[in-house]
């Protein structure tokens, strides 16, 4: 059976859903970041799939490559924030860090 666009989109949707779920439910900031990576990669998958099946160009793939770079930068910044957070609060649980609320 040939893999069609629907399959890629389905996998992408599944990945996105899993990513959102991780972001919403994870208390650990690192887990949360991993969820974000899942969402980004779901988007990348969709870009690549659309580039292959709909447009017949490399625009989608270029965009995907940009997103990967951006994701790396984001991960670097976000992990720095997590480190700083751990240093300041002694925890990486996002629900424990709510000083501004109080």
């Amino acid at each position, binding site marked *: 059976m040939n893999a069609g666009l629907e399959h890629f989109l389905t996998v992408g949707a599944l990945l996105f859903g899993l990513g959102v779920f991780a*972001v*919403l439910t994870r208390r650990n900031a690192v887990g949360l970041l991993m969820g974000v990576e899942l969402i980004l990669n779901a988007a990348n998958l969709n870009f690549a799939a659309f580039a292959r099946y709909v447009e017949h160009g490399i625009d989608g793939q270029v965009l995907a490559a940009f997103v990967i770079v951006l994701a790396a930068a984001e991960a670097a910044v976000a992990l720095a924030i997590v480190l700083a957070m751990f240093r300041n609060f002694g925890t990486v649980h996002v629900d424990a860090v709510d000083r501004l609320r109080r």
Partner: protein
Amino acid sequence: MSENAVLQTALAILLLPIVSYVILFFFGKKLPRRGDWLGTGLLGVAWLLALRIFCHFWSVGDPQLRVHGAWPWLDLGGFRIDAGILVDGMTAVMLVVVTTISFFVHMFSIGYMHGDRRYERYFAFLGFFTFSMLGIVLSSSLFFLYVSWELVGLASYLLIGFFFHKPSAAAANKKAFLTNRVGDFGFFLGILTFFTVCGTLDYFELFAKVHQGAIGGALLTWAGIGLFMGCVGKSAQVPLHIWLPDAMEGPTPVSALIHAATMVAAGVYMVARLLPLFDPGALLVVAYTGAITAFLAATIAVVKTDIKKSLAYSTISQLGYMVMAIGVGGAAYGMFHLTTHAFFKALLFLGAGSVIHSVHSQEMPEMGGLRHKMPITFWTFLIATMAIAGVPLLSGFYSKDAILGAALSFGMLEGHFAPFLLALLAAGFTAFYMFRMVFLTFTGKPRDHHKWEHAHESPWVMAGPLVALAFLSIVSAGWRGPADGWFARFVAPYDMERVVARYGDAPAAQVAAVHETAAAHDVAEASGHGAPETHAAPETHATTDAHATTDAHDAHVEHVHHQAHLIAMFLSIAIAGLGILLSWLTYQKGRISAAAALARFPRVHNVLQNMYYFDEFYAATVYRGVLAWSRASGWFDRVVIDGIVNGCGYLTRFTSWVIGVFDLRGVDGAVNGVAWLMQGAGEGFRRVQTGRVQTYLVFVCFSVVLLIFVFRAL
């Protein structure tokens, strides 16, 4: 001395004491010896100037010489008040009396007030007092007379209350001030009446107007009584005499000044000066008031044990004599008595002051036997006592005898014998209580040995004035009665024709005629025609044209006078002798027991000891009336005035309440409502901000799903 020189000298006499007052008041503390020499010295200069004026008038010898200077003081077109100075014989005598007594009082005070905390203030007040009195003496219009009159009241207030830390002194000066205010009220009404009717306040213009009949009938009588009320207050006549005994709270030299030369003499002088303004009706009131005062006060003086109080009543009694003398037509005798009385009463008070200074007590029962301790005080006091009691050859005898004679002739001519009888009895009492004072104080055995042993003669600065005044008390006897002595040259009645000719508003022809009669009158006067006697029958004032009948009438009057004076002289010697004898028997020999006599008539004693219940009477009527009136006013104030005020308050409060409610509920409600709304909304939305990223993400997800549905629906 030219007229100008006389005026300038008089002005200098008037101003010297006020200069002393101003300097001492402001710089007294910084001057060496606190400035006592300055006040005394300036008064001494004033005294010398007064003597100069006196000598001038003596050497001129014209009883009608009157120097009158007036300067416009207030000029408002139709309304004009002049500041004027009038110097004539009466003024000259008064100037000498006032400055002499004041000078000696100043000198005496140097010793008496030595070491007082407000020493310089005391001398300043003395100067002010003298200035005010000189103002009364020198004024030539009712306006400045009244101003000085009130200044004297103020000065007496300050001096009577000089020891104001004593409650009794503070009460006494208030009493003096308020009592005088009652008299001054009448005085002011009298002045206003004359001013309204005659349109002038100048003495001579008024005399001319009254003489020409510008005012008459009952109005003139009542206006005169109004003026006399001022005298009743100032000269302490019954019924306004109550302030004077209390005025003893002042320093004793001040008592001497008040009683001899200033203040109380002012009333007598005023009536004598304004004699043409009094009609026979008013003069009758004057005569009776004086006689009753003389008698009542003399009887009270008999029972008083405080030496100063006794002297105070003696003064009231003698003032009664003077006032009565004016009332019965012997104004010159009244002035003569004022002069002699000034000397011996000042002497008595200064002598009493010397005694008080020495034994530190005013109660005669605590004295006695001081004669050898204080020989100068004793002898001078004795001279003054003999003078006031009416012992022949001393001044008081002549003046009192002249008054009694005038009163008797008044009775013989007018049928009013009561003044004479009252005055005669008062003369007896006077002799009695004065010698009682001498015996109790100076002779016999000392009753309080402790005080007696500490007694000492006063220093020369105090004893000197005593000797000088004793000398004057004897010498002034030589001045004699006005009819036969040279006192007539000083205190002569006004020559109304001349006054009218100069100040009246008669047509020219009439003035010429008046000049002739005036000349004729002068000739008559020069031929030994008793000038002052024209006063005896006041109705002779009015008859200026009927000279023929007047001459016959005058001859009759002259005869009566001669007779009356002879009778009065013997009677007064007899009754004075009787008084002295009784006093001697009672207090020196002890033949008559004073205590037994008093026990025999307890009711009389009570009445006298309580001073005829005058104070109680005022307490029951005037004070209570005033209090009731105050209460009524208070009630009116509380209920009506306060009601209106409070009503306004309630109204304002109610309006404010309404506005307040609107403000609170309406305006503030809107403001608070907005705030409350904002706060509620904030509270509500605050809950959304959990601070947890995941919550926000959940919202985002739901929102996206919602948006999807929304856009699909579109």
